[in-house]
């Protein structure tokens, strides 16, 4: 028994070292911009760079639109599949997994060919259209995470009975989704939203090929031309992702407890 626990700790220590040593090395390197002393100079340079602020704000706004689009598409779709078309679930699950299998570069080349300025739907002919296409592309990339999060949330409630209970009390579909279903899967939706946020903030391929001023291409650009700033940026991006994950954990504690699952 004791020997088993010893080896478990060894495995844990090796895993932790594999994870933390590069992280610590990056933090250490990002603080060596000033000769002979540790400092936050690299962070000051990065945070003071107007391109950092512009690209970061652009990506945050894109992430917010992506989350809204994802919620509008995924919540009613996952709800309807659970309620009326359960036989389609395996098909829909497969479709939502496709963005993990098909590389982003393939998707974006498809977009460029389909929605170029000469196509019937010329998204790329204007700035707004290109931004909209980027958000649609991001929503596609985030689909596996958003769908799974919402579907897991829906699994914890009795969708059919709650829907029928609301219907018999006079509620229409809008009321049922906004007042009954969405509040009960809100934590799941937020989990999907934060995962989407983390994906969008660091995404490079789509933003770069659609020539959008997003944070991902900026990270790449800085990484190619500077020494210490990329390490600082990597740590900042890492902190944002971790912040999102922590928020998911905190919010999940406030999930409404189901009548059928008192604890």
């Amino acid at each position, binding site marked *: 028994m004791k020997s088993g626990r010893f080896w478990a700790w060894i495995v844990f220590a090796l895993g932790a070292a594999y994870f933390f040593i590069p992280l610590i090395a990056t933090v250490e390197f990002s603080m060596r911009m000033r000769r002979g002393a540790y400092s936050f100079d690299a962070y000051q340079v990065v945070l003071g760079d107007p391109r950092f602020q512009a690209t970061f704000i652009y990506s945050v706004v894109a992430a917010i639109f992506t989350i809204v689009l994802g919620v509008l598409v995924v919540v009613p779709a996952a709800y309807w599949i659970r309620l009326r078309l359960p036989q389609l679930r395996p098909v829909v699950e497969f479709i939502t997994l496709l963005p993990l299998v098909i590389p982003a570069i393939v998707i974006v080349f498809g977009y460029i060919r389909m929605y170029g300025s000469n196509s019937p739907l010329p998204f790329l002919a204007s700035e707004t259209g290109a931004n909209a296409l980027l958000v649609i592309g991001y929503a596609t990339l985030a689909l596996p995470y958003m769908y799974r999060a919402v579907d897991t949330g829906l699994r914890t409630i009795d969708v059919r009975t709650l829907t029928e*209970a609301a219907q*018999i009390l006079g509620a229409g579909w809008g009321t049922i989704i906004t007042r009954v279903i969405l509040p009960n899967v809100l934590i799941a939706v937020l989990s999907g939203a934060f995962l989407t946020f983390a994906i969008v903030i660091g995404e490079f391929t789509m933003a770069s090929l659609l020539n959008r001023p997003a944070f991902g291409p900026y990270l790449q650009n800085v990484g190619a031309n500077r020494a210490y700033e990329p390490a600082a940026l990597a740590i900042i991006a890492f902190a944002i992702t971790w912040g999102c994950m922590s928020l998911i954990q905190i919010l999940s504690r406030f999930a409404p407890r189901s009548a059928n699952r008192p604890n």
Partner: protein
Amino acid sequence: MTEPFLSIQHVRKSFGPITVVQDFNLDVEPGEFVSFLGPSGCGKTTVLRMVAGFEEPSAGKIVVAGKDITRLKPNQRNVGMVFQAYALFPNLTVAQNIGFGLKVAGMPKADADRRVAEMLDIIKLPQMGDRYPYQLSGGQQQRIALARAIAPKPKLLLLDEPLSALDAKVRVSLREEIRSIQKKLGITTIFVTHDQEEALSISDRIAVMYGGKAEQVGTPFEIYNRPATKFVANFVGTLNVLEGTVTDAASGKVRVNSQEVSLKGKLNGSKSGDTLSLALRPEAISLGRHPGRDSSLSGEIAEVHFLGSVIRVRVGIGGSTVSLDTFNSPATPPPAVGEKAEISFSSGDMLVLH
């Protein structure tokens, strides 16, 4: 004769090739409490769901207060429903749950709050308005579900096995509470259950269902004492079934295991030599001869079970066994297994099953 409040006319429901409800007819009077009683899969819940609007009949129509509601959506029917699984909204407080239908209907907040308080008083949970469903027991949750269903003053109340998920003690008290609230409000109610005791104890009438059809519709007294079919007789209460051969149809004489018994009245539609299924309720039988009991059969004590105040005795008569209960009397020892015994009953209590 008053106009029926709810009229279910020639309703049929098929799911693909399977017909689960066939030619179902029922008229329910205003303020009546009618139970659909039957085993799992008999179609009782499907009929209820068609009245609620969750299923569309394949044929037939449903009329409430003179209006055909067959094709109306559930949210247009003004019907209240209580579900087996409570179906309270977990994100809303008790008061918000009860007020949900009122808010959807656009009732002003002050009026809705008053109605919610009134409902909480009716279900005797006046202090529970701020609690969430997960903070309540099963019985309390189902009372909230009942309050939520009746708060918008529906025309019709549908109860889909509302007591099945509760323990025995709560079930008894809640069923009495449901009946008393229903009587107080005078709301026409359909109650689905597979529990015969529940149906017998609280219904004005019972529709016993089997194979998607109503086998018999009647008062609990009629259903229990005058079952129309073999299924009803077997499903409702405990029943002793004996095989008999008609010896004289005109005078109602039947031979059971070489012993002749007389039934009350003629055996219309039968002729000598026909085999009949005869039913006797245990409470209609006495051990030994008793005054006023004009028929008897002889047999042998097969089993004796001492149950405290009651002794359950099984008497073997030919190939059949008849079960009866006698009260325990400290002065009289229970009969012994293997003893010869005679059972007596009134000829009017022996029913011919079709």
